[in-house]
């Protein structure tokens, strides 16, 4: 320790504006260097592809479907106004919205139930139990319903015996079951997080002041869990809007949705510029929605 005290004070060691500036510059440089590898990687494999897609949405479709680089125009963008595109966009929007609502209705009482267990250990174990099936492959989880709803399967047999449904596979209800099954945990987790850290004494105070249970819930619990509702809705809505695997497997690829429609342009429809215009639109909409959400969230939450 003695050499510590004996150390000669070097000129730079004395606190001065000069030293502070130097430290700030060094820290700024280090921050940049830490980020540099990821920065470069994402610039090359994210920003650049983003620009390419945007630029090629103005290209012309050649005979083989690949964009030709000679003729630039707005054709692909004007095609977005086509009634078919509008139908598909509206259908996707409603499917995503309805799926978000279904998840919310199912997940809220569920998350509430977990968050109101008095022991911390019980809550943690129940939450892990929600996550375990969620970690298994999304494709496998979708396939599970493909198997269960198969035309010879037990669910179909039960439905036919009771006269409730004839065949569920390749119908809209099947797609919804798959979507809810796939994205429900996205809703449960933020709802649980919001309810878990809530100050429950507030609810008790409300009850003490002669508010009924439902009233206390409506006036206290619900508003306090709003950040969870918003976060969960966004987490479910975004992937539902671009859903590709679920409508394909459970809808039989018959229900035309945005995700499948975009993929189609790069597959059998072979119209890359139009597919690029569609992708650009969905990107712009998502970006806009996210910015609006964060701006609004920053003010109210």
């Amino acid at each position, binding site marked *: 320790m003695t050499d510590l005290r004996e150390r000669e004070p070097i000129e730079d060691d004395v606190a001065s504006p000069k030293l502070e500036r130097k430290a700030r510059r060094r820290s700024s440089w280090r921050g940049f260097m830490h980020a540099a590898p990821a920065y470069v990687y994402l610039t090359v494999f994210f920003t650049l592809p983003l620009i390419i897609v945007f630029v090629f949405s103005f290209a012309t479709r050649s005979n083989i479907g690949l964009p030709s680089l000679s003729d630039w125009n707005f054709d692909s963008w004007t095609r977005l106004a086509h009634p078919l595109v509008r139908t598909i966009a509206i259908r996707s929007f409603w499917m995503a919205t309805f799926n978000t609502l279904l998840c919310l209705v199912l997940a809220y009482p569920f998350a509430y139930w977990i968050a109101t267990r008095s022991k911390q250990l019980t809550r943690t174990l129940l939450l892990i139990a929600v996550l375990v099936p969620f970690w298994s492959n999304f494709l496998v989880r979708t396939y599970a319903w493909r198997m269960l709803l198969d035309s010879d399967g037990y669910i179909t047999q039960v439905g036919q015996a009771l006269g409730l449904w004839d065949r569920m596979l390749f119908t809209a209800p099947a797609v919804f079951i798959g979507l809810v099954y796939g994205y429900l945990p996205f809703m449960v987790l933020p709802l649980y997080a919001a309810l878990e850290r809530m100050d429950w004494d507030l609810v008790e105070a409300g009850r003490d002041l002669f508010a009924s249970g439902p009233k206390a819930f409506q006036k206290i619990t619900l508003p306090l869990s709003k950040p969870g509702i918003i976060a969960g809705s966004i987490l479910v809505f975004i992937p539902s809007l671009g859903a590709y*695997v679920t409508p394909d497997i459970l809808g039989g690829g018959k229900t035309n949705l945005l995700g499948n429609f975009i993929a189609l342009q*790069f597959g059998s429809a072979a119209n890359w510029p139009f597919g690029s215009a569609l992708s650009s639109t969905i990107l712009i909409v998502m970006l806009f929605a*996210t910015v609006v959400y964060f701006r609004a969230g920053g003010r109210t939450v």
Partner: protein
Amino acid sequence: MTSRNAATSRWTDRLLAINGWLVFAFLYLPIIMVVVFSFSASANVGIWGGFSLRWYERMFANEQLMNSLQNSVIIALISTVVATALGTAAALSLDRYRRWIGRGAFDGLLYLPIIIPDVAMAVMLLMWFTQTELIPFGRTSITLAHIAFNISFVAIIVRARLANMDPAMEDAASDLYAGRWKTFSNVTLPMILPGVLGGALLALTLSLDDVVITSFVQGPGATTLPVYVFGLIRKSITPEINAVSTLMITISMLLVLGSLGLQQRAERRN
């Protein structure tokens, strides 16, 4: 009795419990059924026909399938290691260094791959690989694509961990004349290790999970297990898919259990 469970009446609570167990049944039963039916002798996927291992025999004899499994494992491991290193450094740069040129843009860029739909990212990467013609479609292109979406997820998880960490510990270490590298390896890394492991697990899972992006950037003869299985499901479903699904479920469960164990050990050491 705490105010937490006094918030609902006994009857409401009972209804909530019934609903809770029903949701758990909804979450677990389909997966359990796939596992059960993978041992069924019946050639019909959803019908029980006595115990048999024939679908597992067929699965292990399927060369294409085993090849895609091997691809999946290699791609997942490489993309996880690279994405974890890059994502952790990115999280450190945003949490520890408040002011540097381009920080705001980087912060936004890092979140983008998470918020855009899979299909859009798939299209972007497909266009990049076809237009630049630098890398042929195959294992390399899939790995590069997986790193691109994994960096962001790792960064978010590690950043959440860093936010809960006291920077005073690092200051103390450097005050005691520990070099920057020593401070990182002896103080910072052990403290954020649970976060780094959590991020790595998520990256591994996402890589093993991905169908959409991989199916756009795959090459002839080089595909991953989920994309191969997706192709099978689209054609016609056979109980062999039940066996593959059970294999994939087992892999995921082992990964989660392993990483939970590692995280616990890392937490206890702190």
